[in-house]
């Protein structure tokens, strides 16, 4: 019984896929950093008492 094997990606496709993966990793890293910055920012504002709504 012959098993159908997936066609291997061409060199060009592999390079493109790796580049895309790298790009995605950079975006994910940036998103993570942004999340950490936002959490730190809200913490600082809360600790300084700036999060309480002020009467206008």
């Amino acid at each position, binding site marked *: 019984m012959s098993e159908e094997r997936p066609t291997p990606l061409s060199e060009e496709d592999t390079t*493109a896929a790796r580049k*895309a*993966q790298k790009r995605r990793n950079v975006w994910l890293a940036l998103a993570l950093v942004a*999340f950490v910055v*936002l*959490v730190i*920012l*809200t913490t600082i504002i809360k600790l300084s008492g700036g999060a309480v*709504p002020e*009467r206008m």
Partner: protein
Amino acid sequence: MSSTDTVDMMQTRPQPATAGDYVQLMKPRIMMLVVFTAFAGLVSAQSVAGVAINPVMAAIATLSVALGSGAAGAINMWYDADIDALMKRTSTRPIPSGAVPREEALAMGLIMSGVSVLLMWLASNVLAAGLLALSIAYYGWFYTMLLKRRTPQNIVIGGAAGAFPPVIGWAAVTGNVPLDAWLLFAIIFFWTPPHFWALSLLAHKEYEKANVPMLPVTHGAKATRNQILAYTVLLAPLGVLPVFTGLAGLVYGVAATGLGAAFLMLAYRVWRSDAGDAGASGASLKRAKGLFAFSILYLFLLFAVLIVEHGFGAYLPVPGLV
């Protein structure tokens, strides 16, 4: 048609996904309207309640609403990938076009849901975070998974999901949701059916093909035109109601009256037309398209005037009312 067949219909694209594909997953056009209405709620609450929140916290709260909207959009696209592949209007979306794998969209939606609710909690309060979580679940689960493929009232009941943002914005400032916030909710809730059904009059064949029970598919175009007019008759006076509670001023009152009258006129023209019927004239379809486009402008302008009145000091009380 089985779901395996429809999954097979999804094209496998040789090019890897771009950042734009992931942005498309978040339904950016819906996100813009969601953020805009949430911002209007946030600005109005500060002015009406006479309190000001830290601008950075306000910005993070607004960002949380945007992330929550994007999360719900991604979950919706994950679940609806099979029917999206069948409809021309949606077949180019990231999942049916083969750009983004389904499981990636789901992961993105779930992670973003958690992040948005957590950020909202940190930036404001538990009520706003809870309402944001509720609205994501309402759209991503209740509307997408339970209502959409089961009942022609899908967009009426599901419309509540899109109506939450101004309430969330309000809660983020004051920590409560008074009548004024629910008024803004009601405006979007009653706006959704005429807005969406105007589009479905144009795309009913596509919904039929995908077996989605939209009103024109299950009850016909005439019943849909009747419902569009009925909801617009309710919406037009409702749009003016914030003036009577003191939430909105003179500028809003004039704008809401004029815009409501125009909405009614366009809905009446669609009601008189044969839009959605087999062999409908080009003029009728143009009327439905016109109503759909105007409905977006209506909501945008109504909330824009609220922002101007409360955020830029243009609030003029209506004589004899306040």
